[in-house]
């Protein structure tokens, strides 16, 4: 993010990265977000990633493809991604468009997303 207010914030919480998108992103910003996030997975040795897309006005073919790419790359780097905060209208439009999140887990909001990752960890530990 070179100038102006941050479009996306990426916070670390233990071994989880929480990335919140604050505004509509255009395609280049989306790609930059992807690259930033993927880099940070290695830097902080993240095991879980939560991407909060509640502020995205639209998740179109490019947006959903990028989110899936992030999840795929993260998986290859050993981290699980959960997409949270997809707005009801956005979900409706995505279905109509013919998009979904593929194998990427989704959760209602940040809290549910963290709970999902916690369950995974519990299963992995037992």
């Amino acid at each position: 993010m070179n100038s102006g207010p941050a479009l996306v914030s990426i916070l670390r919480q233990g071994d989880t990265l929480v990335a919140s998108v604050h505004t509509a992103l255009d395609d280049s910003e989306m790609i930059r977000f992807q690259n930033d996030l993927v880099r940070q997975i290695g830097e902080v040795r993240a095991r879980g990633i939560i991407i909060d897309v509640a502020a995205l006005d639209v998740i179109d073919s490019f947006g959903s493809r990028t989110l899936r790419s992030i999840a795929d790359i993260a998986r290859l780097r050993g981290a699980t991604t959960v997409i949270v905060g997809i707005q009801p209208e956005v979900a409706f439009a995505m279905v109509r468009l013919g998009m979904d999140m593929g194998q990427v887990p989704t959760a209602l909001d940040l809290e549910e997303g963290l709970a999902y990752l916690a369950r995974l960890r519990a299963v992995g530990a037992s």
Partner: protein
Amino acid sequence: MRVLAAEDRIEPGMIEPYAIATVRNVMATMWRRDDREVRNRHRVFDPTQPDDVENVLVASEEQLAINEALRRLTDRERQVLLAHEVSGAATQMLADEAGSTAGAVAAQLKRTRARLRVEYLLALDHIEPPTDRCRPVLLALSSADRRRQREVDAARHLLECDVCARLSEPLLDRGPVRDDVLHVTIGADPDIVSARRAARDLAAQAGFTGTDLTMLATAVSEVARNIVRFADNGDVTIELLERPRRGIRVVARDMGPGIADVEAALQDGYSTYSGLGLGLPGARRLMDEFNLVSEAGHGTTVSMTKWFDPKGSA
């Protein structure tokens, strides 16, 4: 180039029975002053005075252009226009003379003024329009006649014809600001977001809500992205419709290479870049009407409409 927008303000001042030449001077001066004011507004702190010699020169050029433009009207058009603007003859009086109605005369005057503006712009630049289509397009723009603009496909012509694109700038600026139609020029990624925001705002204003807004914005996003990916530049026009019923129409035009196989492009999974091939077929599913016209080498036009459905947008 707000010169022409000032026309309405100038007219009342011309009711005085000035000699034709005087009127031309007044018009030239006022148009010029207005133009200069607009140009200088942003440098209020710049004490530099405009060069007088230059202004006199500009004034005489503009005057010549008006003379030339008046000359290009038909005798009848010129006669009625001057009788009305210069001698202050009321439309009703002119109508009685011609055995016509006041409304018809007013409409005729409106057309004449539209023509005068076009001819003035052409004369000012000392050019003749490069194609047969230019004059009808400019005229349709000058008269702010939307139906006519659609008939002559004005928006596409402006993409194709550099001369008209440049000349039409002041024509597009004039008249009341239309709040039911928006143009977004598409050239780079951020424009995709601007286009879908514009569509969403306009649709919200028309009463669209919730899911309908998001579906519309998503469809606009897809067609705008196609322009950036395949054609480098183009534009998206978003227009509110009242007839046959309330709705919103989106027209995306580009001058790109065109789509060789339109049928294939509308199938899910067809993709020429590393997309998912859901752009066009997806946009079609999101809208109620969808039409794609493309010719190899001559760009692509996607027109799509979403109708307002009070039940569906609850």
